[in-house]
């Protein structure tokens, strides 16, 4: 009886604690799954990226250099704040993208022209939601960023505990077993079908 109550309360309190994450992962999946539909709301002729400034800039990028290190240097030089990443879409360009939950900017460095262009992305709710959904990883070692990624892990563990405790609670209700088996079995069968057929 005690264990039964513990499982029920664990299911409940865990859910109440993680409601914001659960809700944000659910709602933010809509723009991922229906991006072309959401995109229509923003076809207003306004550019996605707005130039903040462009200036001469000279930074050597050695062969095989760690792009994250180079990105950190550029980010610091132009005073951008937030989590960041860096990539090189082609040999004549290096892009450092910097984002918070609310803002996104990128610095585009053109080594051949020795030119640096910083642009800000217009705010869009779908970007805000998908940015939050996709945020994770342990590359950014700043305490709050690390804490977010740890919470993402906790949310995943929460999902697993909800499954385990949910199945346990279902098993405690003998009158629901037949329909429960049907629901669980049909879900598992359909999922297996997708795995094989997709």
């Amino acid at each position, binding site marked *: 009886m005690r264990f039964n109550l513990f499982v029920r*309360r664990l299911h*409940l*309190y865990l*859910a*109440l*604690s*993680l*409601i*914001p994450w*659960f*809700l*944000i*992962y*659910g*709602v933010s*999946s*809509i723009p991922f*799954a*229906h*991006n072309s539909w959401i995109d229509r709301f923003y076809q207003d002729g306004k550019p996605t990226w707005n130039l903040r400034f462009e200036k001469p800039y000279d930074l050597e990028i050695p062969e095989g250099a760690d792009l994250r290190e180079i990105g950190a240097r550029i980010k610091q030089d132009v005073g951008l704040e*937030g*989590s960041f990443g860096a990539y090189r879409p082609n040999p004549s360009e290096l892009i450092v993208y910097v984002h*918070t*939950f609310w803002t996104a900017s990128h610095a585009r460095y053109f080594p051949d022209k020795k030119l640096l262009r910083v642009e800000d992305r217009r705010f869009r709710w779908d970007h805000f939601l998908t940015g939050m959904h996709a945020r*994770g*990883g*342990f*590359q950014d070692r*700043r305490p*709050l*960023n690390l*804490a*977010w990624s740890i919470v*993402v*892990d906790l*949310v*995943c*563990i929460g*999902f*697993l505990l*909800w*499954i385990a405790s*949910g*199945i346990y*609670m*279902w098993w405690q209700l003998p009158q*629901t077993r037949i*329909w*429960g088996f049907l*629901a*669980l079995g*049909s*879900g*598992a069968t*359909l*999922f*297996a079908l*997708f795995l*094989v057929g*997709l």
Partner: protein
Amino acid sequence: VFSKIIRRTHMYLALFLTPWILMYALSTMAMNHREWLRGGSGETLPQFEKEREEPYQASFAPDARPQAIGEKILEDARLVGAFNARKDSSGAVVIVRQDPVTPRRITYSPAESKLVIEKEVFRWPAFLERMHRRRGYQHAALDDSWAFSVDLVIAAMIFWVLSGLWMWWELRATWRLGALFAAGGLALFALFLFTI
């Protein structure tokens, strides 16, 4: 009666969608630790191994789109399904057939009139990530059914939050502690929202 309907819908929907939730939980963890998992295998790009090579005679219009060429090749190779196709600098058409378990890369070299079919070496993190990212309606019955199931998961997640709050509200004994947990979670979320 209303309360019972809410409770049963909450439970049966969860039981039905258990495989999806399990997959999303495990895949999110895999993506959250992507660097570490890649570091373990030392691989950053998917690895392919040759499955077979076969002669392939076909004539495509010079301006044929890679997607149209890919569709015909997949049909001939009996690998019909969701795919991407592109032309590389040598003029070869590279098709990636997006199978969740075994994605394949099919390279058609018009100059050599042959198809090289390779399959991606299976890795759990990559498999989970593929499942996590698969979505969108593509006008093929099974793909659209999957997209619908993803929409169902989204609707279910919102429903579980609302029905969960309803069920909590019916358990008067848990109000105080429940409010504390909910407020704690909300406060932590708000802290993240305005600081990172």
